[in-house]
């Protein structure tokens, strides 16, 4: 067979001279084509099937009693009145639930921090679930919830992460003894040397306030227990690795009694659809009550009780450089506010270690990361797993250094980029970047943006007394997520692989079906899998059915987190296709009277190397495999059914004690160029032009990549200017609906121009890299940079706290009026 592994990498759509492995445009038949997105059909027709659409007969509904206090002891819960309400079936308290379930999983070694679906002795944030009311309808359950009387004794609370880290702060988990859940100090490279070579340093403090991905669909779960089959069926809008196992563990039932159905559309996630506490609660109630139980969060519950907020960080970044602007050292201190229950979120401090220098050559790095608890809603994984806030902090420091140096911001970046010939490039923290051509991507973006004209427009606005600025951001999207950051933050987590599986089956009529066992939240995996299987087998993807096996019928899978499916599932598909082709070749060779290495597989046929006319076609191969044992090679098993489970590329090693480790395998790159105009009277920002240069290696489906780039950029614009989960000093959430949590709409998001570049990854099947976090990685820094360019041109101080509101800009401008010459 042909040595495909080396021969078929490349970038047919955007092949440029600078793309090293650019293959001939016809190397791919189905990849990179404008072939449409098959999921669109059902979504556009309103025929998605979401968890809310699943209502088995006899379903009961859950309503929640939530804490009004940020921190309080639960003295007593009186459920009598609620239970007496007609239609209410049961009321469950935290104490009762805790008796027969295990606490939810913590990834840090913090045994005193007990996280449970319903608070037990104390509530630790306003909105935390205290009791569940089960009734015949959701409305009745809400009526019942109002009748549950909880006697609270308020306790001191802490809302500010820096205050929480102090020794005298009120403790969120008193038995743990501190609010600091994790503190790690890393130093990589020659720190003393890097500092010594520097002529100057620039230090910025940035604040990434709490935001998240806020999906249109809130979290939902339906659980049904069949006592005769001893099987818990679960439909949930999840995007979570190990959900079935953790559910079983918490419910104290064997893992093979939990069947999670992945053929459910998930209405948005980008990391946040974890819902483990929802699943445990619904699963417990379904078993206890012997009826299907449905829990669909309402918007307020989702926004404040769902434990799905994103990173909430204070950074101090110190960048050291020579007089010529060559970076010599970087120090990042960060405190992350995990909210009341850390769960998996502190690990988001570790993932950025894999791209801690961004796209720059920086020989030494200090990274000091602290995770603290406060009396805020719990935090969870959000798009990029901590990378976007880190990118923002680094880029803010680069902009500030350019100002201090009096150097052009783009020039400073160019001067420090890792150069194309330096890949694979090992950064001080031990990770190797796979490939890239940053200068080429920047050139493309600058050309597409017509930067000189953009500068002219900016300056024309300024000349008329207006405010305008241009922002740049250059950053990486680590992709192909593995979970090795678990080991970095907690040496006891020694997981080193994060596999993904795929089954390819060719039925007796020769039709191809691919089976994966994940649910998707808008990432178009049906399209991706069909395209990749089609490309591998040389059959038209349009004819390939893609199905989702449930968690018991399926195979190891970590779900689509960490921008990894194109990479890891791509690997699994390659493995399955290779096995399938080997079997077909064996059949064909036997039929032709040749040895298996005398034939090759070619688009559905098995062909003799020596004589292209000697071939066995698809129909015959399929018929032999399924029905003609007499024609099968001796010992061959019937059917054409292959499962392959693949490791993440480059995984398999534990972190060194100093934290050096190969994190993700692939590194996509993007650069943003944005022109913003600010109304001098109202301080309102309008984004005029938005151009992105983006390189995610080989594009599998251009429409999907553009969708990620546009959507991610909108997400990042939200972070920069609009979105925040805010709390007042009393610990009360101020953003409980879309009235106050401001998602950017089509009015706020400008037309985005995306220019793609392709530097294939040497570690993936077709050179693809991740694209699921595209746009979001750089937009916050770019938009903030544009605002600050406008502000600093007026002599105002830059704003380094996101989101930047008109009020913030107005305050910055007013300070110059008050301080400056009258």
């Amino acid at each position, binding site marked *: 067979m042909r040595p495909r592994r080396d021969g078929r990498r490349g970038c047919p759509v955007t092949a440029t001279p600078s793309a090293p492995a650019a293959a001939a445009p016809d190397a791919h038949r189905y990849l990179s084509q404008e072939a449409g997105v098959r999921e669109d059909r059902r979504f556009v027709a309103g025929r998605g099937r979401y968890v809310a659409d699943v209502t088995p007969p006899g379903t009961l509904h859950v309503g929640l009693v939530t804490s009004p206090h940020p921190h309080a002891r639960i003295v007593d819960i009186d459920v009598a009145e609620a239970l007496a309400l007609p239609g209410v079936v049961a009321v469950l308290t935290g104490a009762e639930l805790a008796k027969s379930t295990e606490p939810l999983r913590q990834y840090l070694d913090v045994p005193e921090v007990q996280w449970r679906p319903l608070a037990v002795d104390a509530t630790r944030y306003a909105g935390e679930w205290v009791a569940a009311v089960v009734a015949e309808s*959701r*409305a009745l359950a*809400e*009526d019942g919830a*109002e009748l549950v009387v909880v006697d609270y004794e308020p306790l001191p609370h802490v809302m500010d992460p820096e205050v929480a880290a102090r020794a005298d702060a009120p403790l969120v988990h008193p038995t743990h003894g501190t609010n600091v859940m994790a503190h790690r100090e890393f130093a990589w490279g020659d720190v003393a040397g890097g500092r010594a070579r520097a002529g100057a340093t620039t230090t910025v403090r940035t604040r990434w306030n709490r935001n998240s991905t806020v999906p249109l669909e809130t979290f939902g779960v339906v659980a049904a227990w069949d006592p005769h089959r001893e099987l818990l069926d679960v439909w949930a809008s999840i995007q979570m690795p190990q959900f079935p196992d953790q559910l079983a563990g918490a419910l104290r039932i064997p893992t093979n009694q939990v069947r999670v159905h992945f053929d459910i559309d998930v209405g948005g996630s980008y990391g946040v659809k974890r819902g483990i506490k929802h699943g445990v609660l619904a699963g417990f109630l379904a078993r206890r009550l012997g009826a299907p139980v449905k829990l669909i969060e*309402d*918007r*307020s519950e989702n926004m404040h009780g769902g434990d799905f907020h994103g990173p909430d960080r204070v950074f101090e970044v110190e960048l050291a450089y020579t007089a010529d602007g060559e970076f010599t050292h970087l120090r990042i201190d960060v405190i992350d506010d995990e909210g009341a229950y850390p769960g998996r979120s502190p690990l988001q401090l570790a993932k950025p270690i894999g791209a801690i220098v961004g796209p720059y050559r920086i020989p030494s790095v200090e990274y000091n990361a602290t995770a603290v608890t406060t009396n805020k809603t719990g935090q969870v994984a959000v798009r990029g797993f901590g990378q976007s806030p880190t990118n923002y902090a680094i880029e803010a420091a680069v902009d500030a250094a350019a100002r201090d140096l009096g150097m052009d911001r783009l020039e400073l970046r160019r001067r420090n980029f890792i150069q194309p010939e330096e890949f694979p490039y090992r950064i001080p923290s031990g990770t190797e970047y796979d490939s890239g051509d940053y200068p080429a991507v920047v050139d493309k973006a600058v050309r597409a943006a017509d930067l000189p004209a953009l500068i002219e427009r900016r300056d024309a606005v300024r000349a008329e007394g207006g405010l305008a600025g241009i922002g740049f951001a250059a950053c990486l999207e680590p992709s192909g997520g593995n979970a090795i950051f678990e080991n970095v933050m907690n040496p006891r987590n020694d997981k080193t692989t994060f596999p993904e599986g795929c089954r390819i089956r060719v039925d007796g009529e020769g039709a191809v079906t691919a089976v994966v066992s994940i649910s998707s939240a808008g990432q178009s995996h049906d399209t991706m899998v069909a395209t990749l299987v089609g490309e591998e087998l040389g059959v038209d993807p349009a004819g390939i059915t893609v199905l989702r096996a449930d968690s018991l019928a399926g195979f190891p899978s970590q779900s689509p987190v960490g921008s990894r499916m194109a990479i890891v599932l791509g690997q699994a598909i390659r493995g399955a296709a290779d096995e399938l082709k080997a079997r077909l070749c064996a059949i064909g060779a036997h039929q032709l009277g040749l040895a298996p290495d005398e034939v090759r597989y070619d688009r559905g046929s098995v062909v003799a190397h020596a004589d292209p006319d000697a071939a066995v076609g698809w129909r015959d191969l399929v018929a032999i495999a399924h029905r003609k044992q007499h024609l099968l090679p001796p010992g061959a098993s019937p059917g054409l059914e292959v499962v392959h489970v693949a490791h993440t590329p480059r995984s398999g090693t534990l972190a060194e004690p100093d934290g050096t480790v190969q994190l993700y395998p692939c590194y996509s790159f993007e650069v943003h160029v944005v022109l913003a105009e600010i*109304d001098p*009277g*109202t*301080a*309102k920002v309008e984004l005029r032009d938005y151009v992105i240069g983006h390189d995610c290696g080989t594009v599998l489906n251009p429409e999907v990549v553009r969708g990620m780039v546009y959507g991610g950029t909108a997400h990042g614009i939200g972070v920069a200017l*609009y979105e*925040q989960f*805010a709390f007042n000093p009393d610990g009360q959430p*101020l*953003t409980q*609906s879309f*009235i*106050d949590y*401001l998602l*950017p*709409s089509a*009015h*706020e998001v400008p037309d985005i121009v995306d220019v793609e570049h392709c530097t294939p990854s040497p570690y993936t099947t077709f050179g693809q890299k991740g694209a699921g976090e595209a746009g979001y990685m750089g937009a916050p820094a770019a938009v903030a940079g544009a605002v600050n360019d406008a502000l600093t041109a007026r002599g105002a101080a830059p704003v380094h706290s996101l989101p930047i*509101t*008109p*009020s913030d800009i*107005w*305050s910055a401008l*007013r300070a110059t009026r008050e301080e400056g010459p009258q």
Partner: protein
Amino acid sequence: MKPIDFHLHRPTTLAEAIALLAEHGDDAKVLAGGQSLLPLLNFRLARPEHVVDLGRLTTLRTTRRTTDGLTLGAMVTYARAEASRAVAEDAPLLAAALPFVAHKPVRARGTVGGSIAHGDPAAELPAVIRALDAVMVAAGPRGVRRIPAAEFFVGNLVTALEVDEILTGIDVARPARGTGAAFTEVGRRQGDFALVGAGAQVTVADGVVVDVRIALTGIAGVPHRATEAETLLTGVPPADLDLDAAADATRAVIAPSGDLHATADYRRDVAGVLLGRVVATAVERATGHAHRAA
């Protein structure tokens, strides 16, 4: 987010609707476009046992031109008002403000009367009504009342309507020739309730400003009628208007509060900025050319 159990009534005549309100009093709530009431019900912030839907009272959906102006039916939707020639001609300030209310889907259902009866100080229409000195017509068990705008808005979400009264229409006086109007606002996003909004209607006759009406949203519990600015601008030739002084006069008397979305100082300052802008545009529209003094 499910409302409490309630009875939905769908009367077909005004008399029937009033009778229902008379019967249920405090336990009843009128439903118009539902764009504010339904969220309140779903959040259980409003907990009426009876909801009286005005949707079938077709007589409240008409806009009539009268000898001295316009009578807008309370149930006229924003969208209908926006498309109305009568509104454009006889209530140019209202026409200028309507596109700023929420988004198209909300404007397709939300009603002029609903906005006014709701009395949200951040809403556009109450400010417009206040600037125009419109008259609210209310019908109840004790008959029909005509309530001037100056008395109608009492506080944050509180109006002069009694619980058993229905707002049936709004009378707006036709402006004199030589009138221009403008509205503008600043919000975090387009379509949001504004942080601050300003509307002005200016009449210029014989080379001087003879009538100025300015109202602001978002800076107090009720729309702020900027009489302090109006006084400074009245009787002045358009070219001599001192808009900065007018803006400062208003900044000096208002006391907005701050919240998550903007500080009090921001609102105070920007109120003045917007006031200057709408007066300048209104004058331009009244006279056909720009007059903003340097």
